Each structure stands twice: as structure tokens, then as C-alpha cells.
């Protein structure tokens, strides 16, 4: 009977949870923005408190040291801080906007590199100063071409330069300086270096700029860390088997639209070949449904994608199968892949909760076969 109650509540909760709203696309962006806004409000509040304390102190002093006769004063009106240098988020706004901008400005990246760029360009942009209006940002940008060598992100050509960004910006309700977009980017050209330098940068800014060159040693941690993240997500170079498995998981969750596959994918259920998805259809989630029989067009109850998107059992990537699934007969042999990774639930407590989605990949980072194993068929 206890099991009945457990089952009842579990079933009802899972059914109810399915009616939860879809997550807004900007969930992460809004969270970051709110976090920054809270930091800015905190800054303003601290400033306001400091001013109130100072005002009271002055009033006490001018009142001859008799606080009891102090005439109450209105708290000072503190306007939101609108200068970018005082805004908590100006720097990260700049980095994000630059990241988005750099990828669409090959002329800029080409100028910074000593040799033609071939890999993906990542930049680390540090604001040095802002114009009083906030419309101009004086910054130092280090950009590096990153390519993947033996599965490891490696920095190739790299360059650093002082730059001036003309930005469209606004001050939001909490006083945060927000860059909407970069409308112009300038940097000293090699041919007219000195004249450009003096024209673009006010004397006070010039004193604060580095003297030139790539500011960090090659192997800059920040650029490599970002490149590694992109690689792990399958967005840089031929993916590693782990990255491809992660990409497949993203695809299952609906946060990625494509998977790396340039040939038909063999789909297995419990080690038996049940279908082959043409390469043109691999990004169609419906194509991943496995039907009860080849002739059944309507009864297609299982899909590796739906198994992976079960929120109750978050998968992890491994090279070995859970012991109870590994006992199933004869694993597939004609997978066309050289490497296998399995997505299995990391917190399954018994065999009936176990599943595995095995993914085979070839030498060029393409998925060749997928096998779905269920502990509770």
C-alpha cells in the first residue's frame, strides 16, 4: 500500500510537471542582468547610506553637538550612477559585446594577426577608460586564432592592440550602463601608427595603455578556457567523442539544432538494428522515434532523445555500460565508428532505472551509430 501511495504521488507530480511553462529563451541572460543590477543597486545604496551618515554628521556638528535639537533633514536624493566607470557591469557588457562583434569583423581580426587567420578567433577585451558620456570605450584587445590540434585547443596567431569603440548604450532603470551594440571600431593602423595613436586616444588614456604587443603569453588562460568550452560543446573543430556525446545530449534537450553526422546513422534498440536514419534527416527529432514494428507508422513509442530528456535521470558520459545493461547479448558490431561513448544516468539506484544511449563516432568526429539500452523495457 505504501508503494501505491508513492506511485500515486510520483505519477501525479510527473504528470503535473509536464504542464510547467516552457523556459524563456533569455533565462540565463536575464539572470546575469538581474545579478548585475542587484550589485549596482547595492553600490548605490551604500553610497546613499554614506551620504546620509555624512549629512547627519555635518548637521550634528553644525548644531553645536546637540543631537536632540537636530532638525530632521530629508535624505539626499541619490540618482542612479550612470557613468560606465562606476557601473558594475560595464566590463562584462564590453566583453560580451566584443565577442559578438569580433566574429563579424574579419578586417579587424585580420589586422591584428601577423598571418592570415584560419581558425576561430577569440578576444580578451579589457576596458582602459571611458569617455565621460560613455559613448566611447578605450580598451586593450588581445585576439588569438585558436585551432584544435590532437583534440586540444591551441593558440596560433595572436595580436594585441589598443582600440576605440564607439558604442550605442543606455542606462537602465537601476543605473547600470548597458552597451547595446558597437557602432564603430578604430585602432591605429600600422602605416600611420603614431598619428592615429594621438588622434584616437586622449593623453590621459595613452598613459594607461600598455606599450603594445600581445599582452599575455601565448596560451592565455582565458582564451584557451573559452575555446575549450566551445570545443566541449562541439562548436570548435572536429569534436572529441565526449564533446559529440555532449552535443547529442544538447540535441535531445532541444538546446542544439544539429548533430555532427554526414552519413546515415544506424539506430539500434537493445543491440538490434531497427532503422537507419538518412543523413538528411538526422536533425529531424521525429526521425529518431523507434517504432514497434517496421510496418507500424503510428506506434513509435521509444526514442533515445526522449529517454535522454527525462529530467529525473540526468545523464553522464562514460565509456562503460552499467553492469546490468552490459549483460545484454551481443553488442552491435557494424557501427562504423571507432570510438564509443555512453550516456547513462548518474544517479540511477537500480537496474530498472538504468538506461544507456551508446554513441559511436568515426575519426572525423561524425556520429555513425546510436544504440538505446533500457533497464526496464
Amino acid at each position, binding site marked *: 500500500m505504501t508503494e*501505491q501511495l508513492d506511485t500515486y504521488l510520483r505519477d501525479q*507530480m510527473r504528470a503535473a*510537471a509536464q504542464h510547467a*511553462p516552457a523556459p*524563456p529563451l533569455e533565462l540565463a*541572460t536575464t*539572470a*546575469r542582468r538581474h545579478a548585475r543590477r542587484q550589485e549596482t543597486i547595492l553600490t548605490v545604496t551604500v553610497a546613499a547610506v554614506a551620504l546620509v551618515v555624512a549629512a547627519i554628521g555635518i548637521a550634528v556638528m553644525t548644531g553645536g553637538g546637540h543631537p536632540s535639537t537636530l532638525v530632521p533633514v530629508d535624505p539626499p536624493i541619490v540618482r542612479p550612477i550612470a557613468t560606465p566607470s562606476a557601473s558594475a557591469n560595464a566590463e562584462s557588457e564590453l566583453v560580451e559585446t566584443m565577442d559578438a562583434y569580433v566574429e563579424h569583423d574579419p578586417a579587424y581580426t585580420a589586422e591584428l594577426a601577423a598571418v592570415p587567420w584560419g581558425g576561430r578567433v577569440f578576444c580578451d577585451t579589457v576596458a582602459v577608460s571611458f569617455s565621460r558620456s560613455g559613448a566611447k570605450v578605450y580598451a586593450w584587445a588581445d585576439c588569438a586564432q585558436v585551432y584544435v590540434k590532437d583534440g586540444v585547443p591551441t593558440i596560433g596567431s595572436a595580436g594585441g592592440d589598443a582600440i576605440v569603440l564607439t558604442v550605442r548604450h543606455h542606462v537602465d532603470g537601476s543605473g547600470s550602463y548597458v552597451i547595446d551594440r558597437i557602432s564603430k571600431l578604430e585602432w591605429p593602423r600600422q602605416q600611420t601608427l603614431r598619428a592615429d595613436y594621438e588622434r584616437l586616444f586622449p593623453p590621459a588614456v595613452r598613459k594607461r595603455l600598455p606599450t603594445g604587443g600581445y599582452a599575455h603569453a601565448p596560451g592565455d588562460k582565458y582564451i584557451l578556457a573559452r575555446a575549450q*568550452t566551445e570545443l566541449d560543446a562541439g562548436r570548435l573543430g572536429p569534436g572529441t567523442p565526449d564533446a559529440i556525446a555532449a552535443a547529442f545530449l544538447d540535441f535531445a534537450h532541444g538546446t542544439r539544432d544539429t548533430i555532427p553526422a554526414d552519413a546515415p546513422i544506424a539506430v539500434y534498440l537493445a543491440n538490434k538494428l531497427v532503422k537507419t536514419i538518412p543523413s538528411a534527416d538526422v536533425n529531424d527529432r521525429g526521425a529518431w522515434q523507434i517504432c514497434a514494428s517496421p510496418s507500424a507508422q503510428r506506434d513509435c513509442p521509444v526514442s533515445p532523445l526522449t529517454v535522454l530528456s527525462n529530467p529525473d535521470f540526468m545523464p553522464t558520459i562514460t565509456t562503460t555500460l552499467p553492469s546490468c545493461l552490459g549483460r545484454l547479448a551481443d553488442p552491435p558490431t557494424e557501427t562504423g565508428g571507432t570510438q564509443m561513448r555512453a550516456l547513462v544516468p548518474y544517479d540511477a539506484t537500480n537496474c530498472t532505472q538504468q538506461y544507456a544511449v551508446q554513441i559511436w563516432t568515426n575519426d572525423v568526429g561524425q556520429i555513425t551509430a546510436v544504440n538505446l539500452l533500457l533497464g526496464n523495457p
Partner: protein
Amino acid sequence: MTGGAVVLFEEYVAARGAALLRFAYLLTGEPHTAEDLTQTALTKAYRHWRRVTRADHPDAYVRRILVTTFLSWTRRRAWQELPLAPGGHPLTEAVADVADAIAGHDAFLRLLDSLNPRPRAVLVLRYYADLDDPTIADLLGIAPSTVRATAARALATLRQNGAAPHVSAAEDNR
């Protein structure tokens, strides 16, 4: 420089945002409040993202933020609006009376509404998140025996309001 951490945070939200929202939906029973709760929890998580990513189970860490935020909200303000029937009487009793007959998630969520926030959180953690009582106790900062007692009372309340009519009264002594 925060860029690397930002990317990881966005990936986490992309992967787990929907699951967190479902969890929040069961806690609040209302889609807009669930979105607010998830957004607030993620905002807090972002501010401490380095600490979150250092945890053994980041997901459990964020879930803890979400539950504690939910409970703090309900301590600070009236829990939620009480919808009124056309005659001006609270709907709760009526809902309880007809719960047996109403199928679907809406009836179940209304039944959960009859619980106070903490018992509701205990049941959601136990039956949806599948956590054991010691883990729930640790998450809520209370004793395991308190978790068991809270769950037992919550189940009795649900049964009284018409949930799981086929289940006898002796079952909640888990």
C-alpha cells in the same frame, strides 16, 4: 574576467532550465510564479557561480537555492492569492470535495495548494526529486525526523482533501 564562467552558466541553464522550471512549478503551482522563482534562483546562482560549479553536484546546489528562496518568499509575504468562487467563497473546499472526480494536473496542483509551503516542499522533494529523507533534511536544515513527521502530516492533509482515495490512512508511516 568573467567570460568563461558566463559560458558555463549559460550552458547549465540551457541544459537544466526546463527541469528547474518544472520543479519550481510543482512548488508554486502557478506558472508565472514558477518562472519568477526559477529566475530568482538562477540570479542567486549566477552571483555565486564559482561556488556552485565547485560543488560536487551543481544541480543539487541550485535546487537548494530554489527551495530556500521559495520558503523565504512564503515567509515574507502572503503565500498566494486565494481564488474566489463567484459567490465570494474560497474555492479550496469545493476543490477538495470534487478532487476525486477531477482528473488531471490542475486538480492535483490545487490539492497541493492546501499544504503549507514547507510540507509541500518536502513532498515535492521526496516524490518528484526522489530525494531520501536525510537529504531533504539536510537541504531544508531540519532533522530527518521532522521531515518524516512533516511528510506524514502532509499526506494526511492531502488524503483528507480527497487525494489518492484508494490509499488507506496507515500508509504514511514510511
